């Protein structure tokens, strides 16, 4: 799975949580929760959705590493089933 595909999976997971937001406008280094104006409940729902889409289990202790979009992509890439993610 490429990083582009992972990013797309993240965007797809964001849409039902923040339907009025256009995730393509989020800068890679921007705080995701602030950019989307989502609370801890929404953020947990985002991680649950990613777990469902990508099959990646994210332990609670890793939440602090997942502040930005780029951090999320970097975190998920090596864990996605099918091996390491590649840049497009």
């Amino acid at each position, binding site marked *: 799975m490429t990083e582009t595909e992972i990013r797309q999976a993240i965007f797809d997971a964001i849409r039902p949580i923040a339907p009025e937001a256009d995730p393509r406008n989020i800068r890679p280094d921007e705080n995701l929760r602030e950019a989307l104006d989502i*609370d801890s409940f929404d953020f*947990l729902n985002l991680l649950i959705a990613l777990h469902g889409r990508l099959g990646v289990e994210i332990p609670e202790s890793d939440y602090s590493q997942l502040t930005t979009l780029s951090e999320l992509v970097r975190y998920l890439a090596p864990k996605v089933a099918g091996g390491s993610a590649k840049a497009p």
Partner: protein
Amino acid sequence: MGEFRMPSLGADMNVGTLVQWNVKPGDAIKRGDIIAVVGTEKADIEVEVYETGMVDKLIAQPGDKLPVGTPIAFIRVAGEAEGKVEAPITAEAPVQPPQAEKPSGRRVKASPLARKLAQDLGLDIEKIQGTGLHGVIEKHDVELAAQARVPAAPEGVAGPAPAEPAAGMRHAIAVAMARSNREIPHYYLSTQIDVSKALAWLERFNQRRSIEDRVLPIALLLKAVAHGLAQVPELNGFWIDDQLKPSPEINLGVAISLRRGGLMIPAILAAHHKSVEELMTALRDLITRARSGRLRSSEITEGTVTVTNLGDLGVETVYGVIYPPQVALVGFGRITEQPWAENGMLGVRPVLTATLAADHRATDGHRGAQFLEALKHLLEEPESL
């Protein structure tokens, strides 16, 4: 026969719009059934019935905008004879915001401005419900009555009716909060709580669970609030008819912000009987339904206290406004790492600021302080939860 009336779905509601009936004449109904959907300024609410029996006649039609208390259906209560009209049936909670009593022959309490406005608008002042102190009718009550006049008021004389849902939400919040500030003498107390043990407890708790079943810190905070209120019951209830009416049930109203703006305060019913896990499940359900517009009337009307958590937004201390006729609001801020002295040693701990806004008519600072002390103890010793 009982009259089923337009319910009061909160201190901020004077009129409601019947959106749809879920029943038809002849249908058997039982207590707790959702029989209609009513639109308020904030959201559409599923309205439950508090009696068991049969639907006899539907009076109101979908689209009708009616003042609270207007009969909208007749219901034959189980076991009663046909054709006899008895006490009204409403979807209201057992305890409701104080209503102005205007028995015939008594002088109606209204401000001079309200009287003049009612006269100008051709409204009968005796038929208007006052929301001011001791039920006094004020200008905005007249404006709301004009807005709710059935059939529709002639063009040009209606009150400042909100033009769109967002404006309606803002207006509803404005009515409730203005009433709160007008009527409730708030006092505020706050305390800082070392939540290192609580977070460690939660981490251990979550390690055993899949991501779908994980519990957020707010569930633990709700549990602690419910326990604390059980120890200081004067903070859990209502101020009605100039006296405190504590509630035997602890129904935690949770302030939930909506993505389109505004907020709802639905309640987790009987929170004191729920485990942390059950509170998380209930909260998840409530947030999901609040944001998708599928709350039930009991959840809107039966909150006995409000909890608001603004920690997600980086706020450290919350000074809340009590939702009348409740008598307290508990606020939580962000958990931050702070220097913390204990047993003569200085360390760094995750610290949470908990705030109590309470009605000074109902309690004094002493009882408020006892509640915060109980809350602090419970969160510093989470095994006790």
